[in-house]
């Protein structure tokens, strides 16, 4: 059934399913189409010629091609959150209910006020923006750019989050084939029959490439039959994956390829649990590029008028989609292949107005065809098109010998020859080579493991494509180690291909080279006059080939025109560098699963679910979620909660999950010797059952990390790192073990996830522990002194490790149990601690107490500080070699005026400190000359009842008691502060040792 609206749908033929009618809307108007249509073919079937407005001049534009090279027919597809700008109507599959809108026009496509730009066309030449909007500089952001962005540009982004899902997957094969035209299918047959694992990617939803439109006879079968027979044979092979709607877009090192599969783009929205698109990373031993060739336009005035179309595209619409882009067609060609469009059009009952052929000799067969069908064959070239947004009306021809002619037509098919798709083969900085007989660039070598076949390799005859594809497939399988019998190649005749180069025909009016970026022949002339002759300069000066189509239809014509202007040959002029992706790939596909809460993996501590039950507020620290504080009903803000937690610890007992610390088992007879080399202090002398604080340097003498390391057995140390550096320290220690000190017998294992570790702190710590630890364990100061470390039994039999270490300055232990008991441990601590008012505390209270105690942490271990800067210089052993020892002694690292850690407290107790504030001597003007350091860490100290902080201050230790200024230009806050000892709390350490 042909719907009444489908004025340009042919009565019969095509690969559309007339039993499956679809309705769709374009610019708010309803149309009908069929399953098997693209948006472009359906618009053509409905007689729609005007699809969009051009980028710069807002010229009316129609459909130029029938594939992913389309520069003109870009639309906004779908609506709402799924609105996707700059989508090619030529590859968008039609579905029922599809909505599309034209772009870059206001208020409507037919009445675009911005078309006034055309009147100013003489000034919108290449380099216009560079030259015009230079002054005054401040006008750029305020005036020029917003105005230009409104006028120029493409579609509108949805502006809200994409509701669909994307994912990424890996695939592996022996032979990867790009394209399912005759060469690709023949390659798949040969490789598959040889026993290779094959992946065949086809960009289109249908398999067959040009065969779908051009037909032909292969193995004595009509092309369509051969395709289905071949697909059936391939499907029966054990290890072949055939993927349609999948574009191979990039080639990466080591035989890795990128492909984008449009899994559900052909549906209004993906079915539940399915993705919209999938990004494939394919690892292939060999790759056959059978991506075909792209027909190129001829540059002449008015070549962008709606109704001017590539000859191959026109016959694709007629033959594959049964949609007539025009009813009276003229052909402008410089090669024999263009004549196929005439044959196809005539077979479909369309009229041919004339053929304008630039070749000196037109074959007798073609002349006979013209005579029979009754249209003239004119020797010459088209040099102008009369028409407008309603389409082509008349064509002006410059005849060989200088005479002129005119032909009336409503469509003009153009063939300037074919460019093999050399993108993929040129991605590793490869340069294609020029081949004279087809006047095109062909691959000259390819990335390792890759070869081109068929039209992508410059073979334009059907028989040749099949032979090349088959040979490439067989060779690829062979070199991937698969040597089964490939059988015989498919056979077809070769058509003659003859061509006379024709790039640009002089004439009046704009002649477009790059349709999408509105680059004209005269822009290229201007670039040449102004000295931008190199193709890379030409590209950037004119923006030729820099649009989303990456110049698939324009690059070769552009550089051919430049070659003519500069008096060089085309190969001398050369090509720009080819870079992936071959087609635009949605950012969503690159992100895949990794968005929103899945942006990165999340690590949860063993007490996480318990903490969540308590209503803890969590903070992201690296990949971790850590309890930051535990708010209680009635508390008005975080400060109140944190203050309560600190006071509870200082006066009673509290606990905090510190499982995020990196934990490493260091084993082996040389474990002590190994630690002596990685820490600045000595560990080989540490007694079994004792812990020691250790500091590591980088080899350049700067502090790397710190932590407590315990000796659990003669040949077993348990090392802890900071949360932030856990992974890096493991990597560093493995480097030390495997590369720097291979002679040491030492083994390392991360046990970060094996142990749930909690800090229990406060004067009543022992009371709490006695409830939970087996009564037989001696926890007294004598039985378990400060810095003791050993395994104990808990009531109920669970084994645990206890470390008498303190970060808070209080009497404290760290207790660790195998991680799956972590949840039980916190619950038991709460139960056992009830009589003592045990209080869970978060990272904020932990931070407050470490600042009160003057312990350094991340803000002080900032990649610029030395051990001495942190007040830990005395830990540096002079009796042994260790990483960073020599460089730590460098002049600048031991200079007396270095910024060192000091305590800071405002002279006015009511003032608030800010970390990041600069330290300025009193009575000096803030500025770089007077900058003496900065505040690294601050907190409100419940113990001192005021804000306190740590800072890195020039000569800080000699300046204790001095009043300086903190200057915070960001917040506009300046305070007088006193430099003091960093240990605000219990300076003699009596509490933690008690």
């Amino acid at each position, binding site marked *: 059934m042909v719907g009444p609206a489908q004025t340009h749908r042919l009565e019969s033929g095509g690969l559309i399913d007339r039993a499956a009618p679809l309705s769709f809307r374009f610019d708010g108007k309803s149309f009908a189409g069929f399953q098997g249509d693209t948006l472009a073919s359906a618009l053509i079937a409905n007689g729609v010629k005007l699809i969009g407005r051009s980028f710069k001049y807002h010229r009316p534009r129609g459909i130029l091609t029938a594939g992913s090279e389309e520069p003109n027919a870009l639309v906004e597809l779908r609506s709402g959150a799924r609105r996707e700008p700059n989508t090619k109507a030529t590859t968008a599959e039609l579905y029922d209910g599809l909505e599309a809108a034209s772009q870059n026009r206001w208020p409507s496509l037919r009445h675009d006020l911005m078309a006034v730009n055309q009147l100013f066309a003489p000034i919108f030449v290449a380099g216009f923006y560079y030259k015009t909007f230079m002054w005054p500089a401040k006008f750029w952001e305020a005036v020029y750019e917003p105005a230009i962005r409104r006028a120029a540009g493409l579609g509108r982004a949805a502006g809200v989050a994409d509701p669909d*899902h994307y*994912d*990424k*997957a*890996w*695939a*592996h094969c022996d032979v990867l084939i790009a394209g399912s035209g005759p060469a690709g299918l023949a390659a798949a047959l040969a490789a598959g029959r040889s026993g290779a*694992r094959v992946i065949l990617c086809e960009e289109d939803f249908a398999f067959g490439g040009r065969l779908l439109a051009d037909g032909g006879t292969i193995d004595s079968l009509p092309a369509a039959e051969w395709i289905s027979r071949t697909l059936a044979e391939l499907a029966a092979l054990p*290890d072949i994956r055939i993927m349609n709607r999948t574009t191979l877009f990039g080639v990466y090192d080591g035989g890795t390829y990128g492909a984008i599969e449009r899994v559900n783009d052909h549906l209004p929205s993906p079915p*539940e*649990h*399915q*993705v919209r698109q999938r990004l494939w*990373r394919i*690892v292939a031993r060999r790759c056959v590029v059978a991506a075909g060739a792209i027909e190129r336009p001829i540059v002449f005035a008015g070549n962008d008028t709606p109704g001017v179309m590539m000859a191959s595209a026109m016959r694709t619409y007629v033959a594959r989609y049964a949609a007539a882009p025009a009813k009276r067609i003229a052909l402008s060609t410089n090669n024999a292949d263009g004549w196929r469009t005439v044959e196809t059009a005539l077979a479909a009952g369309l009229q041919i107005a004339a053929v304008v052929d630039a070749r000196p000799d037109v074959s007798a067969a073609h002349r006979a065809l013209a005579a029979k069908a009754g249209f003239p064959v004119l020797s010459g070239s088209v040099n102008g098109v009369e028409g407008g947004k309603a389409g082509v009306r008349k064509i002006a021809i410059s005849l060989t010998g200088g005479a002129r002619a005119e032909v009336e037509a409503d469509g003009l098919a153009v063939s300037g020859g074919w460019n093999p798709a050399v993108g993929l083969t040129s991605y590793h900085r490869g340069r294609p080579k020029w081949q004279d007989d087809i006047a095109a660039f062909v691959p000259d070598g390819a990335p390792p493991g890759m070869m081109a076949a068929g039209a992508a390799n410059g073979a334009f005859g059907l028989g040749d494509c099949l032979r090349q594809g088959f040979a490439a497939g067989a060779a690829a399988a062979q070199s991937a180690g698969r040597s089964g019998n490939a059988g015989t190649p498919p056979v077809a005749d070769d058509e003659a291909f003859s061509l006379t180069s024709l790039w640009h025909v002089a004439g009046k009016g704009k002649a477009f080279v790059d349709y999408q970026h509105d680059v004209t022949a005269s822009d290229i002339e201007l670039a040449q006059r102004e000295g931008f002759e190199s193709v890379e300069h030409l590209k950037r000066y004119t923006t030729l080939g820099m649009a989303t189509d990456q110049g698939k239809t324009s690059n070769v014509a552009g550089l051919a025109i430049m070659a003519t202007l500069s008096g060089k040959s085309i190969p001398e002029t050369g090509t720009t560098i080819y870079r992936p992706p071959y087609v635009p790939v949605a950012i969503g596909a690159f992100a895949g*699963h990794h968005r929103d809460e*899945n942006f*990165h*993996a*999340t*690590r*949860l*501590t*063993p007490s996480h*679910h318990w903490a969540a039950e308590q209503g803890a507020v969590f903070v992201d620290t690296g*990949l*971790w979620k850590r309890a930051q504080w535990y708010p209680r009903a009635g508390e008005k803000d975080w400060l109140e909660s944190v203050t309560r937690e600190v006071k509870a610890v200082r006066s009673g007992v509290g606990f905090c999950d510190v*499982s995020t610390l990196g934990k490493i*088992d260091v*084993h*082996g*007879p040389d474990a002590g010797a190994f630690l002596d080399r990685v820490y600045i202090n000595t560990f080989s002398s540490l007694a079994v059952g004792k812990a020691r604080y250790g500091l590591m340097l980088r080899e350049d003498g700067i502090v790397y990390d710190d932590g407590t390391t315990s000796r659990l057995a003669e040949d*077993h140390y348990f090392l802890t790192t900071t949360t932030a550096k856990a992974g890096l320290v493991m990597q560093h220690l493995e480097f030390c073990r495997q590369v720097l000190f291979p002679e*040491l*017998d030492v*083994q390392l*294992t*991360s*046990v*970060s*996830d*094996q*142990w749930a570790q909690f800090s229990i702190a406060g004067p009543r710590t022992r009371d709490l522990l006695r*409830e*939970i630890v087996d009564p037989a364990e001696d926890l007294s100061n004598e039985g378990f002194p400060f810095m003791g470390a050993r395994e104990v039994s*808990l*009531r*109920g*039999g*669970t084994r645990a490790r206890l470390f008498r270490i303190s970060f808070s300055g209080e009497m404290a232990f760290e207790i660790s149990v*195998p*991680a*799956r*008991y972590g*949840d*039980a441990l916190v619950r*038991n601590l709460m*139960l*056992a601690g*009830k009589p003592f008012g045990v209080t869970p505390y978060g990272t904020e209270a932990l931070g407050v107490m470490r600042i009160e105690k003057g312990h350094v942490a991340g803000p002080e271990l900032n990649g610029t500080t030395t051990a001495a800067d942190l007040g830990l210089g005395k830990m540096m052993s002079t009796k042994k070699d260790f990483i960073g020892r020599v460089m730590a002694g460098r002049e600048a690292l031991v200079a007396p005026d270095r910024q060192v850690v000091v305590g800071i407290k405002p002279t006015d107790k009511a003032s608030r400190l800010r970390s990041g504030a600069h330290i300025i001597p009193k009575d000096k003007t803030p500025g770089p000359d007077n900058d003496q350091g900065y505040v690294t860490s601050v907190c409100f100290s419940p113990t001192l009842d005021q804000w306190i902080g740590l800072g890195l201050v020039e000569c800080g230790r000699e300046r204790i008691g001095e009043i300086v200024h903190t200057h915070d230009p960001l917040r506009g806050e300046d305070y007088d502060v006193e430099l003091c000892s960093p240990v605000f709390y219990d300076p003699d350490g009596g509490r933690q040792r008690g």
Partner: protein
Amino acid sequence: MAEFSWIARSPLEHALVVGAHGARGTEAGVWLTEIRNFDLIQVMARRGKTAELAKAAQARFGVAAPETPKAVRVPDATLIWSGPDQFLVLSNAGKHAIEPLSQAFSQSASLSDQSHARVLISVSGEKARSMLAKLSSLDLHPAAFPVGTAAATSVDHTSINLWRGNDWPDGQAVFNLLVFATFAGSLWHTMLDAAAEYGVDIRHSEELA
């Protein structure tokens, strides 16, 4: 005196919901099973002790420890290669827990208990490979990754140990993943998302496959 209970809780206790997930079809394409309560000991050969370790392993398990990326099954344990000079011993019921193994390898290896550091997830079903292809860069084709192959690799930038166990009686391949415990919840969600389109059957078990 308070009564303490020491219940071991899997890191997946909250994330794992037994039953069906994702697309509902005739049969789930992916089966995800968490295996709980196992002993997992990392055995690392000491310098120059390859021969002694081999002897000790032979004495303990009746087989040589794997020296290449393989998983070797013996009646009461699986020995999984995890890197040069090291392997994991996976077992349950305490027979090859840290204490007995420490004695067996006292002269030849350093041992580290990883029983609580990892979560063990078994993936099978007709679509297991399709689902794993979204997570793993490895080639899990039957010919490239036969039964008994092991790999130390990464999923979602997180280290895992992956090995192919014995096929189910119906011929379905079984892939075992040891993932770090604190990452497990997050990885579990990633696995569910990857498998949702195929339909998932979720369960947990205490039996080592």
